[in-house]
């Protein structure tokens, strides 16, 4: 928290929905190479926001900036009205930002249950003493969180792999477990980095259903990176398009789809 300068945001967006996160003129360079240059966009509370673009467009870097893994050289991020220049990843986590990874980043030595339980770490408070005895409050706490985690397991329909080590699970299920782990944090903003990459049609449909349900039932705001245009068009409320680290379009799926820049840069390449 030390490195944050806080200003009360006065942003209340035009159409009545409130802005959860806004990215303002962010530039990120690696050893002189610009990964992201001067990008601004925002994410409204409760929406599903897609970030798309060809490979190397800076999508993942953008997520990394949002959750504090990279620190941008220029620009700032405002989240829930607070502006931060530098934020540690765990600070992002405790302020309600969770994410999944492009290449599944599960804790491979732990079971599905433990992986999702790990998402509850921030919510668990009991100290070493109670943990050591594993009676009273610590045990009670563990059980309460287990109950919450079980709801997620039920939600994601992964009851049958509850006790299996995640390392051996098929890829599609691993992605689901990873989503579960992020859900366990009860985030306000959930960043999904290519949640459907490498999945077959059925798995994609399941995952889309989970994302939509998650958004509507838990009210979680979601920002996702996705390659499958069909999926993006179905899921997203608004889409921002990046290309070579620059923003080339921003709007509803329909608007973006008809945007000439996008057709040239992305759809043109893809087809």
């Amino acid at each position, binding site marked *: 928290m030390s490195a944050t300068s806080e200003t009360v945001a006065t942003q209340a967006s035009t159409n009545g929905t409130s802005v959860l996160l806004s990215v303002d003129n962010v530039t990120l360079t*690696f*050893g002189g190479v610009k990964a992201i240059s001067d990008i601004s966009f925002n994410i409204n509370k409760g929406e599903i926001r897609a970030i798309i673009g060809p490979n190397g467009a800076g999508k*993942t870097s953008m997520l*990394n900036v949002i959750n504090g*893994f990279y620190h941008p050289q220029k620009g700032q991020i405002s989240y829930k009205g607070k502006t931060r220049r530098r934020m540690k990843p765990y600070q992002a986590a405790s302020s309600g930002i969770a994410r999944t*990874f492009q290449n599944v*980043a599960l804790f491979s030595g732990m079971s599905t249950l433990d992986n999702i339980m790990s998402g509850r770490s921030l919510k668990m408070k009991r100290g070493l003493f109670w943990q050591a005895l594993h009676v009273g409050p610590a045990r009670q706490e563990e059980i309460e969180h287990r109950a919450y985690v079980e709801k997620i397991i039920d939600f994601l329909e992964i009851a049958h792999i509850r006790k299996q080590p995640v390392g051996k699970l098929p890829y599609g299920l691993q992605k689901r477990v990873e989503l579960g782990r992020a859900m366990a944090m009860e985030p306000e903003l959930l960043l999904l980095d290519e949640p459907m990459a490498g999945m077959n049609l059925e798995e994609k449909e399941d995952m889309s259903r989970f994302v939509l349900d998650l958004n509507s039932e838990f009210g979680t705001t979601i920002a996702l990176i996705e390659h499958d245009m069909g999926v993006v068009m179905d899921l997203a409320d608004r889409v921002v398009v990046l290309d070579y680290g620059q923003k080339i379009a921003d709007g509803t799926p329909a608007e973006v789809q008809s945007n000439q820049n996008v057709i040239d840069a992305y759809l043109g390449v893809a087809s």
Partner: protein
Amino acid sequence: MEALSIGLDAFFLAPFRDMFSLPDLLIQVIWEGFVSGVLYALIALGFVLIYKASSVFNFAQGIMVVFAALVLVSLYNYGVPAWLALILTIGVMGLLALSIERVILRKLVNQHEAILLMATIGLTLIIKGAGQLFFGGEPKSMITEELGLSTGSSDWEVFDGIVIFQHIDIAAAVIAIIMVAALALFFSKTRIGRALRAVADDHQAALSVGISLNQIWAIVWFASGIVALVTGIMWGARSDVSFALEIIALKALAVLILGGFTSVPGAIVGGLIVGIGEKLFEVYWGPIFGGGVEAWFAYVLALIFLLFRPQGMFGERHIERV
């Protein structure tokens, strides 16, 4: 306040006053440090060779030094002529390299670095046990003269004092320099050497040169076996051939931290820094702590260094991706 300023003086100023008041001693200390630094550097060189080619952090390098020296000395003691013993020892080191590659490394391809490290720790136990079983645990003298190395010393009068140079130390320095040069030549001029460099960067590329990974591993282990033999002779000549050397060889780890795991120049510079640094520290600062600081100076130096530059002197900074 008084005590503090005395303490600060004792730590930060007095040692330097001592240095300049007896410059001949200083030169002697630096020379001693330089020579042990050369030996540290040689051990580190053995590590680097293997690490570069196979990402194996060879914990057994220290014991290989002891083992090579033991084989040499014992062969001579059994009546084998010195020159023949030297050749036979080289053969033994070659055999060792080959069997390590066959029996251990080949089975552990693509394993995590930590597992490979632990395998070499196991290897250390085996070599140590075998060495003690066959040659006995008691210290032995190196057959310095029989190998044609001078044991005399030369004096150098300077600053109203005398600095003593042991011939064997000079020889050690010279041989080390020759050895590094030879390795540099080997790496840059020979086909195998180039393949070795390629392997460090990219295993596939090495295969395309037409040399199998297995061969390369055998070769680097053999090369570091020879480096170990040379180190063993030099070290043995300065003190005795004993298993205590193994612990001292751990200092090469500190050297590697300073110089980086993959850099040959780094190993040399690191070795010299550690060697000279610990001698200076022992002589000029040691008394403050009650002596014996040589035992940990290298590691603490490495630790402090790591805190400021985790990637080593010559290493590159990595950008972590998620």
